C-alpha cells in the first residue's frame, strides 16, 4: 500500500485482478470468436472455388454494401428517435403496470424473425387489413420491423442510465431560465450521450447483419451482406466469395465502431447518480400525462399490434377460437422423432439461457471493468471499447463454419457438443453486457474509488463497496438482455444442431417448415409461449433488489 496516487495512471494492485479482467474476456473472445473466424476466412480465401476478387470487383457487391450500411443507419436513427421518448417515460415516471409494460416491450427482441415476418405480412401483405398502405415488400416495412425488434435496446440501455440521473440538475437549469429543449440539450443529453452511443451501436450492428427481415419483408429486391453471405454458402456453396464478403463486412463494422468510439467522446464526466426511487414519480401535469400516454400509444401500435396478431392466430383454429394449436404442440410429438413436448423445449431454453447469462455476465462484466474500471476511464483504451461489439457485427454463419473446422479434433471435438450452445449465446450476449455496463461504470466518480483505496481497500474491495452498488441496476438490465438474447437466439442454436436439446425457437422453426395449417398454428402457439416466457423472465429479473447493496 501507499505511494503517491496518480489520478489517471494509478498502478494496479493485484496482478491476479488484472489478469482476470483482461485475460478472461480476451481468452474467451480469442478462442471462440477470432480463432474460428480467422480459420474460416483463411480456408475460404485459399480454398478451391471462384476467385474472391471477382465478388469484390462486382458492381452488385458495391450496391449491396451501400444498401447494407444505408438501411442500418436509417434504421438506427429511426429506432433512437422513436424509442428515446419511451426511455424518458420509463426513467422519469411511475405508472400502473410499468414493470409489465417494460417486460412487454422486451418481448419483440426475442421473437424469431420468421414469426414476426409472418405477423407483419398478414397486416401489410396483399389482402391484409393494412394492404392499402402499399408497404408490401418495401423498404418501409423493413425499417418498421427493425424499429419493432430494437425498440427495447434503446429503452433499456438509455433508460437504465437515465433513471439514475439526478433530476435536480435539470431543475437547476430550468430555475436559471433555460427552456425545456435547452435543458435537455445542454444538461440531459450530454449525460446520456455514452448510453445513447452504446444503444445506437448495438442497434446498428443488429440491423447491419439483418437477414430474415430483409428476406421476408423486403422480397427479392433488397439484399444485405448477410443475405449475400448466406446465398454464397447455402445456395451456391461458394466459400471463397463468402469469405471475401465476410472481410468486407468485418472492415465495415470495425470502421463504424471506431467512428462510434470517437463520437462517444473521449471521457465521460462523472455523474451524480441517484437511486431510481428518487428520480421517478407519477405524471402530474396534463402535459406529463400526455407525454406518458402518447408513448404508451406508440408502443401499443408499433409493438402491440404485431404481437397481438400472433396471439390471435395462435387461438384461431379452423373450428373457431380455441386451444387446438396448443394441444397440437404435444400431439405432434407422437407422429415423429423431431418434435419434443413443449415443456421439454421450455426447460431446454431456460437451462441454456441461465448458463449463457452467467457466462455473459462474467465475461462481459470483466471486460467492462477492464475498460472502464478504476483508473481506466481515459486514454487510448477508452476508444477501443466499442470494438467489444465486434461479434455482433460478424456473420453468424461464418463463425459457425469456423467452429466446424477449428474444434474438430479430439479431445476438443466440440462440433456437435451441447456446451457450444450457451457459449455461442454468450458470444452475442457478453458484448452486450459490457456495453450496457461501461457507460455506468464510467460515470462513477473516480474520487470515490481513490478515497476507498487510500483507506486501504483492495481493488476487489473497491469494486465491491463502490462500483457494485452503483452498477447493480445496469447489471440487472444486462442480465435481462443476456437472458432474452439466449431465449430468442436461433441461428447458432440450429447450427449447433443437437436434435436432443431443441430450444423453443428451434421448435418454432421446425414447425413452420412443416406443411399444413396445424403445424403453422402450432408454431404460432409456441411463439406465444416464448413471448410469455420472456416477459416472465424479464419481470422476475426486475424483481431482484439489491437489498444489501443500498437501494439502487
Amino acid at each position, binding site marked *: 500500500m501507499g505511494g503517491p496516487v496518480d489520478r489517471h495512471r494509478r498502478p494496479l494492485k493485484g496482478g491476479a485482478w488484472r489478469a482476470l479482467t483482461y485475460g478472461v474476456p480476451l481468452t474467451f473472445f480469442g478462442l471462440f470468436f477470432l480463432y474460428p473466424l480467422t480459420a474460416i476466412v483463411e480456408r475460404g480465401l485459399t480454398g478451391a472455388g471462384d476467385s474472391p476478387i471477382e465478388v469484390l470487383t462486382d458492381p452488385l457487391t458495391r450496391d449491396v454494401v451501400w444498401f447494407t450500411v444505408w438501411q442500418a443507419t436509417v434504421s438506427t436513427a429511426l429506432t433512437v428517435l422513436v424509442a428515446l421518448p419511451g426511455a424518458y417515460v420509463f426513467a422519469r415516471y411511475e405508472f400502473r403496470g410499468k414493470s409489465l409494460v417494460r417486460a412487454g416491450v422486451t418481448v419483440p427482441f426475442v421473437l424469431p424473425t420468421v414469426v414476426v415476418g409472418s405477423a407483419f405480412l398478414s397486416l401489410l401483405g396483399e389482402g391484409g387489413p393494412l394492404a392499402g398502405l402499399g408497404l408490401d415488400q418495401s423498404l418501409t416495412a423493413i425499417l418498421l420491423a427493425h424499429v419493432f425488434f430494437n425498440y427495447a435496446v434503446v429503452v433499456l440501455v438509455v433508460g437504465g442510465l437515465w433513471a439514475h440521473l439526478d433530476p435536480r440538475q435539470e431543475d437547476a437549469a430550468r430555475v436559471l431560465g433555460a427552456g425545456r429543449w435547452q435543458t435537455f440539450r445542454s444538461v440531459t443529453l450530454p449525460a446520456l450521450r455514452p448510453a445513447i452511443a452504446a444503444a445506437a451501436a448495438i442497434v446498428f450492428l443488429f440491423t447491419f447483419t439483418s437477414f430474415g427481415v430483409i428476406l421476408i419483408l423486403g422480397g*427479392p429486391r433488397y439484399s444485405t451482406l448477410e443475405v449475400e453471405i448466406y446465398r454464397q454458402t447455402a445456395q451456391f456453396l461458394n466459400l471463397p466469395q463468402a469469405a471475401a464478403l465476410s472481410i468486407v463486412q468485418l472492415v465495415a463494422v470495425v470502421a463504424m465502431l471506431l467512428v462510434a468510439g470517437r463520437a462517444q467522446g473521449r471521457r465521460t464526466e462523472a455523474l451524480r447518480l441517484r437511486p431510481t426511487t428518487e428520480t421517478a414519480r407519477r405524471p402530474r401535469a396534463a402535459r406529463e400525462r400526455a407525454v406518458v400516454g402518447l408513448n404508451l400509444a406508440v408502443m401499443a401500435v408499433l409493438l402491440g399490434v404485431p404481437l397481438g396478431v400472433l396471439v390471435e392466430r395462435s387461438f384461431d383454429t379452423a373450428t373457431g377460437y380455441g386451444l387446438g394449436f396448443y394441444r397440437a404442440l404435444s400431439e405432434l410429438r407422437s407422429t415423429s422423432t423431431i418434435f419434443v413436448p413443449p415443456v421439454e423445449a421450455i426447460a431446454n431454453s431456460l437451462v441454456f439461457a441461465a448458463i449463457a447469462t452467467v457466462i455473459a455476465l462474467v465475461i462481459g462484466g470483466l471486460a467492462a471493468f477492464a475498460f472502464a474500471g478504476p483508473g481506466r476511464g481515459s486514454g487510448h483504451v477508452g476508444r477501443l471499447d466499442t470494438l467489444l461489439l465486434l461479434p455482433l457485427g460478424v456473420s453468424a454463419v461464418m463463425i459457425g463454419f469456423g467452429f466446424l473446422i477449428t474444434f474438430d479434433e479430439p479431445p476438443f471435438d466440440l462440433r456437435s457438443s451441447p456446451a457450444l450452445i450457451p457459449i455461442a449465446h454468450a458470444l452475442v450476449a457478453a458484448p452486450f453486457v459490457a456495453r450496457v455496463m461501461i457507460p455506468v461504470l464510467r460515470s462513477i466518480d473516480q474520487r470515490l474509488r481513490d478515497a476507498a483505496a487510500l483507506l486501504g481497500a483492495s481493488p476487489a474491495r473497491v469494486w465491491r463497496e463502490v462500483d457494485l452498488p452503483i452498477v447493480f441496476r445496469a447489471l440487472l438490465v444486462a442480465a435481462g438482455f443476456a437472458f432474452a438474447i439466449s431465449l430468442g437466439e436461433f441461428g447458432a442454436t440450429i*447450427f449447433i444442431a443437437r436434435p436432443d436439446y431443441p430450444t423453443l425457437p428451434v421448435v418454432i422453426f421446425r414447425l413452420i417448415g412443416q406443411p399444413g395449417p396445424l*403445424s403453422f398454428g402450432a408454431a404460432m402457439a409456441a411463439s406465444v409461449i416464448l413471448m410469455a416466457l420472456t416477459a416472465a423472465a424479464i419481470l422476475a429479473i426486475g424483481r431482484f433488489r439489491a437489498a444489501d447493496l443500498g437501494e439502487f
Partner: protein
Amino acid sequence: MRVGRRVLSGVVVAAVVALGAVAGCGGKSSSDEVVLVTHSSFVVSDGVRREFEESSGKKLTILQTGDAGEALTRALLTAGNPEGDVFFGVDSNLLSRALDGDLFEPYEPAGLEHVDVRYALDPEHRVTPIDHGEVCLNYDRAWFEDRGIAPPEFLEQLTEPRYRGLLVAQNPATSSPGLAFMLATIALFGEEGWKGFWADLRRNDVLVTSGWEEAYNARFSGSSSGGGDRPIVVSYATSPPAEVIFRKPRPTEAPTAVLTDSCFRQIEFAGVLRGTSNEQGAEELIDFMLTRRFQEDVPLSMFVFPVDSEAELPPEFSKYAVVPESPLELPPEEIEANRERWVDQWTDTVVR
C-alpha cells in the same frame, strides 16, 4: 483480495467443468452408435427409428445441420473428418458438388434392386437414392370454382391476361423450390426461351417471395394458415395431401390441386461419409433406408415419394397426391455448370 480470489477460483473451476463436460460429449460415434447427418427437413417416425435400433443393436443419433444447402456446405467443409457416419439429403440439384467434393465412400446397398434405375444417378454408388419429391405449381380449387375460371393446365398459360396477378413464386437465389421452378422453366423452354417466359410472367404481375414459408403460408389463398389472396403457388406435389392431413376436421376432398405439367423432379440421396468411424453401422443404415418399412414411412413423415416402386403409398397419398409420370428434369452436371449464371439472369429478368 478475498472476493477476487473467490471469483478467480470460481471461474477456473467453471472452465474446467465446462471443458470436461464438452470433451465428454464430442461428436464422433462409437461402434454402437450411428450418427446420421442431415438437413432440417428430415423426419422419421419414432417406431421406424426404434426398429432400426432394435434390429441393428445400434443407437441412431440424428444431427440436423441446417437447410439442404447449409448442411451440404457443412459436410463439404468437414469432408474426411465427418461429424457423423451417414449423410442424407443431397438432392439432384446439388449432387455434382457433393461428388466433386469427395464426400462419400462407395457402397452398393442390398435393396437397390427395387429402385427404379431412373433414380440411380451415380454409377459408382457413392450415393444411394432414397426418395424423390416434385416441385409443382399448386392452385386453390375453391378460388377458381367460385369465379368460374378454369385453372391453368399448362405452364405457358400463366402469361395469359386471365391469370394476371395470380401466381406467387420464390426467389431462386434464396429458396430451393424457387430454384427448382426456375429449372423447370429452363427444362421446358430451353436456354432460348426461358427468360422470355419470365419476362412475360413479370408483366403478368408475378409475386416473388424469398422463401417457401411466406409464399405458401402468407401469400397463397389455398392454405388455411395465412389468408393470402394469390390462388397459384410454387410448392410440392405432396402439398395437397398435407392440406388434408393437417386440417382438423379433415376435408373429404383436397382443397388444393397440382398442375402436373409444371413439376420438376428432385431426388434425394444418402451416402456413407468418407472417414466414418463406424463404416459397418453406416452401411446398415443405408440398407435400412431402402427397406420397405423406411420407404413406406417416407411419405407421411417427409412428404416425399419413396424410390422403391413396390412400396405402398398411404391412403392419403394414393387419394390426394399425384405422382407426376414424366416430370421435367435436368442433368446434375448441367445444373452445376450453370446454376449461378441462370440465377443471375433470372434476377436481371424478374427483379431489376
